[in-house]
């Protein structure tokens, strides 16, 4: 086991990793930017090192400074969390060449699954269904039209280097395809420096269902079942849950097996997520792999009883998984709400600022993962996630009731948060009847 680990991240996930390390008896080195100086969670680390000024590009994304911090902090490994450098294969490569463990998959695997286009090729190789679409990047507008006609409209243009919903456009016919092509390429170039676009059939009212996978360095790969993340707004997840309601058991089984097959083909180890889209006829299609721990990992932890962050650390230290697929028996229903510092009443305007008072909810089946404390100021430079509220109960209905109860108990004063939106979703009939798809929230908000 490692003696010391550096956490190359901030906020709630940094706290999550620090907690796992403390339980494993591993010392921690936290890093922080000047905007995060004084954040209370840093005191829980054994050492904290400033790596730059507020902008992420000047601090958390500075590979040289993160590695220097790892060296002066005398660590054996780095946990990258999610976002920032977590899916940066070059960073993983630098770690390796500096003889510092990277808590995640190998750089080669990260490259193979990180590029959306190459991931699709990997899925085809593993016999995992993909959304009908172009076999690779589309060279130009003319080719786009040809392909679109083959696979059938409506089509979705997607940036190969994309994420967070950027560089995506829907085109319903030949005519709108031209402008969709221009816009998607331009947005992709601006956001990711890579204008590469591929095309897929656009699935109407899809459900977003993802499979959590976990592999060790000894060839064992298991799945921890699925999470349904259909409750999104503008491609940003709001609420995640497990199991996916209304997913036929046979489809669930096939998706989980497909995810493991894909992971094996990629030589994957550590934690990862295989994302699928499920259409209204329960056909599922591979979308992408997230080669890191995800924000919503607690949902799977509650349902399976497995601590995913500790598992990642153990796996990176070379330990065997210690359990087999048949040992992973899901129990009950878990739901997570992402509490963001945004004002739903003002078009989700970000609301950084000082939290004058925070009262965390508690009770049976309630978990609140948050780095925020009374007096903590949410900085404007990073994501707006203040905390994750997770509940776990024997049934979905009970989980919904507990979540409503916990959301009402949660008090965050001084800033606006998305709590009112969560309450609105949880009161909605379509949500209760599990009739959600990824368009649900926006339709609900439109009235």
């Amino acid at each position: 086991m490692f003696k010391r680990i550096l956490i190359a991240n901030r906020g709630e996930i940094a706290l999550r990793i620090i907690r796992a390390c403390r339980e494993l008896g591993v010392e921690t080195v936290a890093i922080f930017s000047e905007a995060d100086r004084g954040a209370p969670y840093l005191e829980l680390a054994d050492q904290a090192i400033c790596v730059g000024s507020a902008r992420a590009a000047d601090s958390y994304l500075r590979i040289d400074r993160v590695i220097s911090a790892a060296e002066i902090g005398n660590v054996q490994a780095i946990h990258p969390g999610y976002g920032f450098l977590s899916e940066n294969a070059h960073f993983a490569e630098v770690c390796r060449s500096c003889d510092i463990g990277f808590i995640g998959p190998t750089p080669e695997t990260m490259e193979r699954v990180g590029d959306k286009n190459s991931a699709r090729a990997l899925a085809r190789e593993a016999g995992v269904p993909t959304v009908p679409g172009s076999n690779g990047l589309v060279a130009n507008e003319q080719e786009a039209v040809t392909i679109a006609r083959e696979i059938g409209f409506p089509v979705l243009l997607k940036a190969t280097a994309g994420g967070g919903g950027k560089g995506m456009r829907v085109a319903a016919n030949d005519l709108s395809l031209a402008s969709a092509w221009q816009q998607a390429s331009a947005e992709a170039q601006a956001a990711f420096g890579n204008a590469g676009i591929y095309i897929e059939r656009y699935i109407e009212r899809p459900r977003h269902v993802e499979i959590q996978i976990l592999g060790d360095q000894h060839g064992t790969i298991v799945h921890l079942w699925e999470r349904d993340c259909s409750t999104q707004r503008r491609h940003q997840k709001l609420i995640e849950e497990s199991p996916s309601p209304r997913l036929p058991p046979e489809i669930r089984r096939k998706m989980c097996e497909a995810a493991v097959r894909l992971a094996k083909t990629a030589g994957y180890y550590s934690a990862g997520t295989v994302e699928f889209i499920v259409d209204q006829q329960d056909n599922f299609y591979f979308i992408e792999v997230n080669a890191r721990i995800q924000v919503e990992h607690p949902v799977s932890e509650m349902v399976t009883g497995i601590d995913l962050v500790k598992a990642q650390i153990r796996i990176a230290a070379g330990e065997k998984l210690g359990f087999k697929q048949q040992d992973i028996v899901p129990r009950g229903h878990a739901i997570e709400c992402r509490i963001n510092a945004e004002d739903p009443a003002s078009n989700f305007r970000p609301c950084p600022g000082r939290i004058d008072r925070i009262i965390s909810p508690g009770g049976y089946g309630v978990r609140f993962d948050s780095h925020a404390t009374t007096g903590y100021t949410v900085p404007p430079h990073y994501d707006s996630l203040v905390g994750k509220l997770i509940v776990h109960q024997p049934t979905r209905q009970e989980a919904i009731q507990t979540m409503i109860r916990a959301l009402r108990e949660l008090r965050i004063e001084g800033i606006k948060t998305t709590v009112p939106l969560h309450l609105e979703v949880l009161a909605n009939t379509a949500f209760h009847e599990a009739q959600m798809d990824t368009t649900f929230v926006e339709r609900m908000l439109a009235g």
Partner: protein
Amino acid sequence: MSAAENLGDLFNAKRVRRLIKLMKEHDLSEIDLKQADQRVRIRRGGEFVASSGALSAPAARSAAAEPSVREPVADSRMLLIKSPMVGTFYRASGPDSAVFVKVGDRIGPEKTVCIIEAMKVFNEIPAGVSGQVVAVLVENGAPVEFGQPLIKVDPEA
């Protein structure tokens, strides 16, 4: 400390001062003491962050490389040369070389005041300011973080 003198109250100020004195005498850069669920760790030079303990003890101030000078009343006019990177601070270009600057030296903005080694690269750090060196705040060979004050300069001297 004698064996009879058990660690007792780890956070007794007198005891902490004594530990720091011992560290200087024996040129120790770091000590780490644990008893039950109390712990104190003292490192000379560089930024110190409080470690875990049953009592919330004040963090031991990092011992300055130069003898601590009574702060002049006009401290607010002092300039600080801060570290632009994360790495290890060196006062000279090699173990047998003369230090770049010492207290009392007059320097200009182009003057190299120290080296910070990061990822095996030795970076010469220019002063960026003019004046007289009042204090060197970091021990030779100590780790430094971004923004950490390295050298105090009096611009009016």
